[in-house]
């Protein structure tokens, strides 16, 4: 039997995931309520960030604590390029003149944010990708701290720790939906490309892959740059969804949420990344609702602040204990046809 091409046999996954995202967007559109709309936008942003993180972590097997730094770089690019020049002069007087006068639409800012983050991913990655395993993870953590420390102190360009306001807010779900679907397709295309396949081989059998001529640091670097670009664009869109940025928006809190969604969904699976976002976002939303207070009879019942993070941490630990590969494991959502003719699977008799 002729083996179907890898493109055709795996395309079901991004299509199913996109359909899932479109369904959420339509739900928001029909519901028409403002808070729900914002929730769906948050979910799409989180999908972009988690899928961006998956592109590196899932394929290389190296846990990265530093990817939110790229979102930070992208978020500030959005601030630099889209705020009205008048307001920029007050908040960030140290910007060079050409940047000070620049006022570009949000989608261009997202692309610029992605490009800027990709550049820095290349610089950092060239060093970090030489490390392996745990040392690499800790070094990515140092990268996060490095970026945060610079952005929290460079007063004239980032307004230090105070919020930079005045970023045009985009309130419709469609741009975020398109960006999330693009992120899913980028991740899928990378994982079936020769680089992605080589990197997955290196993740599972480093010695055998190296012996077969895979240049592991180089493959990791390619994945790092692509995922950095997706994170950068995601960070820029994040800035456009709330209208302001601070260095601490993009620090440990967001790192924790993003990582927990990826871990719960399954680090080795694109479907897991998306499902992890959908499941944990629902949980977070429910807990936020309870933290705000619920009317029970005559008294109001409210959970104390912090329960949301504690619950998230507990879910993460329990999943790691009982299902370390996450909900999806290494499997992907595929149509019934693709499942029957999975290439490379040994026939069972």
């Amino acid at each position, binding site marked *: 039997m002729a083996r179907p091409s890898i493109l055709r046999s795996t395309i079901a996954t991004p299509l199913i995931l996109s359909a899932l995202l479109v369904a959420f967007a339509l739900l928001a559109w029909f519901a028409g309520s403002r808070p729900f709309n914002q929730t769906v936008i948050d979910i799409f942003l989180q999908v972009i960030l988690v899928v961006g993180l998956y592109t590196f972590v899932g394929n290389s097997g190296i*846990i990265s604590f530093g990817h939110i730094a790229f979102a930070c770089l992208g978020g500030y690019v959005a601030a630099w390029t889209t705020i009205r020049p008048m307001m920029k002069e007050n908040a960030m007087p140290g910007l060079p003149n050409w940047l000070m006068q620049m006022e570009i639409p949000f989608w261009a800012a997202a692309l610029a944010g992605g490009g800027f983050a990709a550049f820095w991913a290349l610089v950092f990655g060239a060093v970090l990708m030489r490390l392996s395993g745990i040392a690499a993870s800790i070094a990515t953590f140092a990268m996060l*701290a*490095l970026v945060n*420390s610079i952005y929290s102190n460079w007063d004239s360009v980032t307004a230090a720790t105070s919020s930079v306001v005045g970023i045009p807010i985009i309130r419709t779900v469609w741009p975020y939906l398109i960006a999330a679907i693009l992120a899913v397709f980028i991740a899928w295309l990378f994982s079936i490309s020769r680089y992605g396949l080589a990197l997955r081989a290196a993740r599972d059998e480093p010695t055998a892959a190296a012996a077969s001529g895979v240049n592991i640091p180089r493959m990791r670097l390619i994945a790092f740059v692509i995922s950095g670009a997706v994170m950068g664009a995601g960070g820029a869109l994040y800035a456009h969804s709330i209208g302001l940025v601070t260095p601490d928006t993009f620090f440990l809190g967001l790192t924790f949420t993003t990582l927990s969604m990826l871990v719960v969904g399954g680090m080795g699976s694109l479907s897991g990344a998306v499902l992890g976002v959908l499941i944990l976002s629902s949980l977070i939303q429910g807990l936020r609702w309870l933290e705000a207070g619920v009317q029970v009879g005559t008294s109001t019942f409210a959970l104390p602040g912090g329960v949301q993070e504690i619950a998230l941490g507990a879910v993460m*630990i329990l999943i790691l204990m009982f299902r370390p590969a996450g909900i999806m494991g290494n499997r992907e959502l595929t149509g019934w046809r693709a499942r029957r003719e999975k290439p490379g699977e040994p026939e069972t008799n």
Partner: protein
Amino acid sequence: MGGLMQVVFDALSLGSLYALGALGIALIFGVMRLVNFAHGDVIAFSVFALLWPSLDAVAIIFAGNLPWFLLIPFTLAVGAGLSVLSEVVVFRRFRHANPATMMIASFALGFVIRYFLLMLFSSRPKSISLLPGLSQPVELLGARIPLLQLITIIVTIGVLIGLTAFLRRTRFGLEMRAAAENFTMARMLGVRANRVIMGAFALSGALAAAIALILGSQTGTANIMMGASVMLMAFIATVIGGMGSLVGAVIAGFALGAIATVMQVVLPPDARPFRDAFVYGAVILVLIFRPQGLLAARGTKERV
């Protein structure tokens, strides 16, 4: 001369903090290949254990009013207790998991501890006065330094000597070193795994509590994020020192303290806020030339 000695003492006391932190992380990494991201939150927890839970900005001192000879053992016991508890409740189930899984689990546990503190104490920093007698300055070799700085250095040196003696001279220390070298083999030769691992966690937690006492008296504030920056430097020290090498971790901790202090002096005033950024940058440069760390521990290289 006095100015130079001032820098030397600053470097030594900052380095002591980093070295104690790095030691706490390297001890656990040695016996079970766990990178403990919850270490910084054990530090914060140990400080908050001295306060009564309240959401107000003013701290209600509870155990913090104990005389020092009770206060110090109490704090050390809290740190050790929390650390052992985290082993029994969480990390024991990850004994056979791979290091990456354990690392994420500890990251999650750290968040659980931090937000537990947030729930009880709110995220606002609180001012506390812990061991106030230690802030008075003393003259030494022409430099005026706070008594606390001197005590920090002496305590650290004492801890290092004590720990070395413990690891080299006692049976338990021998078992711990054997377990760090080759865990499976050590078990087969009759080393009790649970005992050794719990011992490592207790020691590591007590070290975290020692850092908590020093930081608490130094800064005069209790903050749920207070352990984070020390922990990060301690992590970097363990990576530079070669994962799992106790000596390497201590040396790298002191080296980081020295680099940070020297940069504080040498950098122009405009660049001083970026001190930590420069230190991280220097670390990345070191890793280019020695990706395995300065003193690579045996048995950490991936075997084929």
